[in-house]
């Protein structure tokens, strides 16, 4: 059956004009670049560090270098604890602001967003000024005679965790807030009415109904954590790298793009795996969007 003039005008043409541009965009600036990264990860480099299209598995072999393996482990460790800390601090916090009086609620919510209007690098640098050997914290502690000589708070895993939690905390709070706000107050009352105690109501009613927010928030925190190289640059002083640092080095100073591409493939696979688990747990892709 041939398409009539009517259906062409009512369907085909509008569909192509509306969806065509985004299709081309996503194809050329998302799909093809990622495929190209995959291709590049199998390429070698010549003596001038230029990419040469000779098939090799060397890049993947190099991924199993012990130094690299250590950094993956460290990176996962940091991402895991950042996520856990964000959940432990973020859940009660999101709960309190989502259950606040509606007038106050909007302001409390905005206050979570406001810090993000200041560039994240500057804020991380703010932490460095605060924690550094001649920073505020040391000054205060010395004034209080609690310490005699400045303590080095910076450049360890603890400060990296602090920086990561600081950068990613809102990405945990926002989905949690959305999930908790949707929660019907009557359900909590019904549970209490039926004789359940606070903890029982929480674990059997509140948590199951808001767990989707925890999952979404975890995805939004864990994955970026693997790549945030600037946090460890500023607060880690080069001895607490994450996978992002390895990739960054290959594309900047190291200038070994194929190796960097292979390292990126690790991140892509991890992302796919985590998103897959998220979907298996019943997570909705849509709630990752906003």
């Amino acid at each position, binding site marked *: 059956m041939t398409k*009539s003039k009517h259906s062409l005008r009512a369907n085909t043409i509008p569909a192509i004009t509306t969806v065509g541009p985004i299709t081309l965009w996503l194809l050329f600036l998302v799909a093809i670049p990622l495929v190209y990264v995959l291709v590049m990860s199998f390429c070698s480099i010549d003596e001038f560090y230029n990419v040469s299209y000779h098939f090799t598995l060397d890049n993947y072999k190099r991924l199993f270098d012990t130094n690299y393996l250590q950094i993956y482990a460290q990176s996962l460790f940091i991402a895991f604890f950042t996520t856990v800390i964000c959940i432990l601090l973020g859940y009660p916090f999101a709960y309190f602001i989502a259950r606040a009086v509606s007038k106050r609620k909007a302001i409390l919510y905005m206050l979570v967003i406001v810090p993000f209007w200041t560039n994240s690098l500057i804020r991380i640098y703010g932490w460095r000024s605060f924690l550094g050997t001649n920073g505020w914290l040391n000054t205060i502690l010395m004034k209080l005679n609690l310490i005699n000589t400045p303590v080095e708070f910076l450049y360890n895993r603890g400060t990296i965790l602090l920086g990561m939690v600081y950068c990613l905390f809102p990405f945990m709070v926002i989905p949690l807030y959305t999930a908790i706000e949707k929660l019907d107050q009557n359900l909590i009352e019904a549970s209490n009415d039926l004789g359940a105690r606070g903890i029982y109501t929480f674990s059997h009613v509140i948590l199951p109904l808001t767990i989707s927010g925890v999952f979404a928030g975890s995805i939004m925190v864990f994955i970026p954590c693997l790549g945030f190289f600037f946090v460890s640059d500023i607060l880690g002083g080069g001895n607490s790298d994450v996978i992002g640092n390895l990739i960054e080095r290959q594309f900047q100073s190291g200038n070994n793009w194929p190796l960097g591409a292979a390292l990126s493939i690790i991140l892509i696979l991890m992302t796919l795996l985590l998103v897959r688990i998220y979907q298996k747990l019943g997570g909705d892709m849509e709630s990752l969007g906003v």
Partner: protein
Amino acid sequence: MKDEIIVKVNQVNKIYGMNHVVKDLNLSVKQGEFLTLLGSSGCGKTTTLRMIAGFEEATSGSILVEGEPVENKEPFERNVNTVFQSYALFPHMTIFDNIAYGLKVKKFKKSEIKEKVSQMLSLVQLEGFEKRYPRQLSGGQKQRVAIARALINNPKVLLLDEPLGALDLKLRKQMQLELKELQSRLGITFLYVTHDQEEALTMSDRIGIMHDGILEQLATPREIYEKPATRFIATFIGETNIFDGRIETVEGDFAKVLLENGSVIGKGEGFVKDELISVSIRPEKLKYSMEPVEGFELNGYVKSYIYVGSVIKAIIVLPNGYEIKLERLASELLPEIGSRVFPYWEVADSVLIHSFDQTFYRAVEDIQYG
């Protein structure tokens, strides 16, 4: 009422994938009439309306408005307007801008638009609402804006898709009368779609009953009630008792019909001996006697009574267990429960219906063609 045909639907079919939604539809809407398409959800009535408006395309067949085929015309090129079930008022525009929309699109002069809109507002009794937004209006008021917005364009036909569906019962009754009054005052042709049989009977000049994609009968409300063309219509419109049987003899308009419980007499034309048929008799037309009546061999006993305000309904059980209903004024004295009665009717009150109607043939076709 002039008999000029304003909308003609010719052998129209609509198929969505595997669903045959409208089947060989033929329909002529006369100038100035109030025609209702009545049927349960999924019967194809709304699809028919949307094809006339231009939102859906007929799979085959043609639609003519004022004698001109409109298949290749876009909705905005057709001189028909629609009142939507959801009202579809533009939420970001005032009532004035909503009603003026059609005229603004057609680049009418500002002064003219203003005048016409205020005429429309007074027509639907919403003077002073110009500056409000749809969200500030009640359901009934939104409904009136939707009607005014369509009528201002002076359409040849106004298509109304369950316009009262979202209103509560009381308001719906009031709006039914208002709509009917508006239609006869303006003389604009209304093609109305509803699933509410009472609404259809109250307002329409003619009713087309659709069932499973087929227009089963197109007639005046009275005709439909008194002479249902199919078994479906007889049971769909009002309450009725249906007896399935076979014609034994035909004498003029009368036929002797053999039922499982004995023979009866019915009225109808065009029936032949041995044809399988149904007899329909309304509960209020069903009579009873304490002794056998000539020509009727039915008997049964009174099982129970149900009081429904001013009327009382009796349930009579026939020997094979079939229950029939009889309706009388509550003031009437009726036989005791358990007494034996002999049901009968005035032959002129009964309706004979072909059993092998279109529904049957269609079923056969469906079996044949899978």
